C-alpha cells in the first residue's frame, strides 16, 4: 500500500510538471564498460525496456605514453544487437586524460583530433554494429575530460578540431564546478554540454559523505538562473562505489558493489562505513574480516530529488536525460518506475 501511494505521488508530481512545461525529453544511458566480459545482451534489454533512444557509448580513452605519444586504450567491445537497439542513436564518447592535453603541441593536437575521428568512424563502421544493422550513422561526438585552467586552451582547440574534422555535433561532459564558475573556467566551444550531476566530492577527503551525490552539495552549484550559453543535457548517477580502507588491500576502489556485501558487513558509527565480519569472496573481490569499507550508492529518493532540482533549474524545449551507466548489476538496485520518473520529471 505504501509503495502504491509512493508511485501515486510520483505520478502526480510528474503530471504536475508535465502540465506546466513542454520539454521534449530524450532518454539515454551511458555505456562505459571496456573488456571482454561485458554481458551486453542483458544491458541492451534494459535499454529497450526504458524506451531509451540514445546510447552514449565510450569508444576508447586517450592516454599519454612517453614513447608513443597520445594513444587510445580501453577500446570498446560493445556490440549492438539489432534485436534491442535498432532504434538507438549512438553518441560515440571519448575520454581524454588530462595529462594528454598538457603534453601535446598544436601540431600533435591536430593529429590527435584526426586520429579520434578516424577511430570513431572505423569502430562505427566495423565494430559496434552487427553486420546486418541498417543504421550505422551517428550525429554527435562527445568528449569527456576534466580539463583545468592550465590546459583549457588545448582542450578547447581539440574540440574545435574534432568538430571541424568530423562535421558532427560535438558535445562535452561538464562537471558542476566549471558549470557554475563558467567565467573562470571558460565555456568550451561545443554545440551542447552534458552536465554530470555526480562525483561532487573528493572521496578521500570527505570520508563521511557520499561523494557520488549529496543534495546539499548539488544545490550549491545550481543556485543561480543564468542559462548556459549552449543547450544543456543532464546525467544522473545509478552506480555504486566501494572504497576499501585497508593498508594491505588488493582492490582500492571497486564499482558495482556486490549485493551480498551487506550480508557480511556491520555498519559502523561513521556514516556509510562498514566493517567486514567474515572472510568472503564475492564475484572477483575478496573481502577480509576487519576491513573498513565505505559504500556509496545514491538512493532512489536522492535521485528523484536531484532530478527535480535540475528540472527546475534548466528551462529548455528539449533535453537529453541520461543515466550513468548501463549496467544491470547497478540498475537492478532501482525500481523501474523510479528511474522512469527521473526521465519524466523533465517533461
Amino acid at each position, binding site marked *: 500500500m505504501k509503495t502504491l501511494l509512493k508511485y501515486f505521488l510520483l505520478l502526480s508530481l510528474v503530471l504536475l510538471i508535465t502540465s506546466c512545461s513542454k520539454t521534449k525529453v530524450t532518454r539515454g544511458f551511458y555505456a562505459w564498460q571496456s573488456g571482454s566480459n561485458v554481458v551486453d545482451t542483458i544491458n541492451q534489454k534494459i535499454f529497450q525496456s526504458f524506451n531509451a533512444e540514445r546510447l552514449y557509448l565510450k569508444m576508447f580513452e586517450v592516454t599519454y605514453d612517453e614513447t608513443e605519444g597520445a594513444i587510445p586504450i580501453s577500446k570498446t567491445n560493445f556490440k549492438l544487437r539489432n534485436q534491442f537497439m535498432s532504434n538507438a542513436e549512438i553518441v560515440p564518447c571519448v575520454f581524454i586524460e588530462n595529462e594528454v592535453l598538457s603534453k601535446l603541441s598544436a601540431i600533435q593536437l591536430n593529429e590527435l583530433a584526426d586520429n579520434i575521428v578516424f577511430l570513431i568512424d572505423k569502430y562505427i563502421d566495423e565494430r559496434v554494429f552487427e553486420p546486418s544493422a541498417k543504421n550505422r550513422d551517428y550525429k554527435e561526438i562527445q568528449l569527456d575530460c576534466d580539463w583545468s585552467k592550465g590546459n583549457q586552451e588545448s582542450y578547447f582547440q581539440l574540440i574545435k578540431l574534432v568538430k571541424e574534422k568530423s562535421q558532427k555535433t560535438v558535445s562535452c561532459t561538464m562537471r558542476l564546478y566549471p558549470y557554475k564558475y563558467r567565467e573562470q573556467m571558460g565555456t568550451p566551444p561545443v554545440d551542447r554540454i552534458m552536465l554530470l550531476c555526480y562525483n561532487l566530492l573528493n572521496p578521500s577527503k570527505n570520508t563521511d559523505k557520499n561523494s557520488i551525490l549529496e543534495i546539499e552539495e548539488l544545490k550549491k552549484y545550481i543556485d543561480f538562473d543564468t542559462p548556459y550559453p549552449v543547450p544543456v543535457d543532464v546525467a544522473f548517477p545509478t552506480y555504486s562505489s566501494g572504497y576499501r580502507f585497508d*593498508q594491505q588491500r588488493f582492490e582500492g576502489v571497486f564499482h558495482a558493489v556486490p549485493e551480498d556485501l551487506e550480508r557480511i558487513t556491520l555498519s559502523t558509527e561513521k556514516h556509510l562505513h562498514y566493517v567486514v565480519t567474515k*572472510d568472503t569472496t564475492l564475484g572477483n573481490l575478496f573481502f577480509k574480516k576487519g576491513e573498513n569499507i565505505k559504500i556509496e550508492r545514491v538512493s532512489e529518493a536522492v535521485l528523484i530529488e536531484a532530478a527535480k532540482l535540475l528540472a527546475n533549474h534548466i528551462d529548455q524545449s528539449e533535453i537529453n536525460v541520461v543515466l550513468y551507466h548501463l549496467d544491470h548489476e547497478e540498475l537492478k538496485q532501482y525500481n523501474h518506475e523510479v528511474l522512469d520518473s527521473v526521465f519524466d520529471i523533465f517533461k
Partner: protein
Amino acid sequence: MKYWIAFLIFLSSSTLATACGPWYPYGEETRFSLLYPGWFDNGGLSEFYYSADVTAEYYEISSENDKNTLDWWNLIDQAVDKELVFHTIYSLSSKEVIDGENQPMIKALLDKKGKPYIDYLVFAKSYSHLNNSGNYWERNDKQEDSLRNVAAQIAVKNANNTTDEWLKRRYAFLALRFHFYSNNKAKVIELYDRYFDGKSEWAIDRWAEYHRLHFKEDSYQRNYRVAQLFSSVHSKRNGLWNLYNTKINQERVLDLAATNHEKANVHAMYILRETGKTLNELKTIYQLDPSNELLSFYVIREVNKLENWVLGPEITAYQPVIRDYDYDYNINDKIMKERIEEDRLYAKEFLDWLSVTAINMNSEVRSASIAILSLIVKDPKNGIKQLEKETFSSVELKNWKSNMLTLLKARDSKSPKLESYDLESFLKTDYRNKNAFIFALGREFEFNGDLSAAIMLYSHLNDKGNYDSFTWHESNGRTAYNLDFYYDSFDYFDANYSASEIENSWKKIENHKDSLLSELVLKDKLNWLDMIGTKYLREENLEKSIAVWEIIPNEYWFSEARNYDDYLQANPFYANFYSGHEETVGDTVSFTKLEIAQELQSRIKQSKRLKGDAKAKVLFGIANCYFNMTQHGNSWMMKRYYWSINFENTIYADDLDYNTCINAKKYYLLAKEAAKSKDFQALTLRMAGRCESIRIKFESNRNFDRDKYDSYADFVYYSNKYYNQIKANYPDVQEELLTNCLSFERYYQSIK
C-alpha cells in the same frame, strides 16, 4: 631568522631526510613476507605471485623457461649452448642469419638439418615486423593486412611444398599468426584444423592453439582449453588469463575435462588470482593430480597470504585500517584479534594437510612452507625439524634455510640470547627479504624484553644495499611525529621506550664492542646519548639529563649530527619572548642543549634561595625557558628532533606539556606569588594567561558553545581564567597588558 621555526610545517634532520618526504608506505610496500616464490619458479608464473600490485613481476622470457628454445636446441641435438639458441632465434636479424654461416648455432643447423631450415629462419625474421599490434590508432590496417596476407600465402605455400613435418608446421604457424593479427577468424580456424588440431609436442603447436582460442565462441570450451594450455605455455600466460572467464560455471567446464589431470588444471585456473583462502581447492587439485604443474606455485601463494594476514600484523603492526582521527579502535582491535586467530587456525589446517597428506609434493616447496606455517601457528619446533632434514638445492634457499632456522630457534627459546645464534650470514650478505628477517628476529628479542639486542639488530634495517625501504607501523594508537609508521629504529625507540630502558640497554650494547652486530649503532653513539638525555628531560629528570649530556663532547652540539646550529640558537631565558618570530636582543647569547639544562638547573636552585621580587624574576626566567622548550618556543629542539604543526598528539612522555605549556604556567604563577611589584604580578598573570590560551585551543579542538560566544576567538579569550583575574584584580593595567604586547618590557622592568 633561521632559528625561528614556528611557521615551519615540518622540519627534518639530516639523518632522516629520506623518511620525511611525501612518500607513504602503502599496499605492496607494507606486505610482510619471508618466502619469495621466485626461489621455486623459473619466472614462468611471476606475473601471478601474491601481490598487492595488479601484476607482481613482469614475465621475462629466457633460455631457461622458453619451450620454443628447447625445441630448437633439441633439433640440433643440443650441440651449442642453450643461451646461444635463444639469442639466435630471437635476437639475430635476417641478414645476420644469412651471413652467419660461421656462427655456431647457424652452423649446427646447417650441418644437422640443412639449408631449408636456414631459409625458414630468414623468412620468419623477414616478416616478424608484421606480428605486432603497435598500430594503436588502427590506421594502417588495410596495408598491413594486405602485407600479412601475402606473407601468409607464401608461408602456406612453403608448408605445402615441404614434407618435413617440423618445417611444415613452422610455416603453417607463421601463416596462422599473420591471419590472427589481421583478425581473420576463418583462416585461423582453417589453418589450425589442418595443421595443429590434436598436436602439442612443440611450442608452436600450443601457440597455435592459443591464437585459435581467441575465436572460440563457446566460453565453456574456451575455458576448458585455456586451462589445459596454461600450465605449459609460459609466455602466453597473461594472454590466456585474459581469455579465461572466471564468472562462468566451473562445473560445466569440469564436465568437459576427460581426465583427473585435466580437471585439476580447471580447478587451478579458477583460483589463479584469488586473494582469499583456497586450501579446499588445493586439496582437490592434489587429490586429482599430485603432480599438477602449478601446485607448488599455489602452495607458496597460500603461504604468502598467511604471512600477510598473520605475521604482518603481529610483526610489523601494519593492520588493515587507514585510521581516521575519530576511528573507534576498540571495535577494530577486537575484530583484528579474532581475525588473526581464525587465520592461525586456517594455517594449522593447511600445515596438517601439507605434513600428513601432501607428502608427494615438491620437497623443497613443502619443507619451506611447513617452516613458515610452523612460525605462524607458534610451533617452531616442527619447522626446525622439517628444515633440518631438507637439503635445498639453490644458494638462495640454502641461505634462507639458515636464516629461517635462526628465526625459528629464537621463537622456540623462552629467553633468546644473541650469543646462541650465528648472525654473520644473517647480517653480512645481501639477500631478498633481509629487512623482514632482521626485523622479525629483532621483534623476538624486543618482545622478550631484550631491547639492546633489538636496537642492535634494527640498526641494520634499511642499511645500504637494503634499499627496499622497510617500514613498520605504530601500534599504540598515537604517533611519534606526524607519521604513523617507522623507518628508523632511532625514532622507534625514542618514541616507545623510557629513558632508563634505553640507557640500560645502551650499557649492554657497549659490551658488544667490535662486533658486526653492534658496529652500526655504536657509530651513532652520540646521537643515542643525546636521545637518552632528551628523554630524561621529557620525563622531568633534569639531573639525569645533564649527567648523560655531560658525556657528550662539546663539538657534537656544533656538528652535522643534528640541526642545532640552525634551530637551537636563541636564548630561552630572555624575557622579551613575546616578539613573535623576530630575533631579540637576548639572542646574542645562545646555548647548547647541555648548557640550557645546566642554566635551568642553576636557576631553579637559585630561585629556592631567593625571596620577593628577586625570586620572582628568576622564576620568570625559568618559566620562559619551559615555555621555549614547547612547540611554541624558540628552543623546542631540547625535547624534539622534528615536529609538525599538523599532528600534535604524540606518544612522548611530555606530550601534554609540549602542547599546553603546563610547566611554564606553573612557574609564571610561582613568580606571581613571589613578586611584590603589582605590575610584575600582572605581567606574570598575562603570561600564564597566554599558556592558558594555548591549553584551551589544544583541548577544545575548535569546539565551543556557539550560543554563548560569537566566535572561537571570543570563547578562547573569555574563558581564560588568568585574563579574567587581570581584569578583576589589576583594572588599571588590564587594557594595556591584554592588547599591547610591546608594553611588556616596561612591566618587566618594574623590578630592577
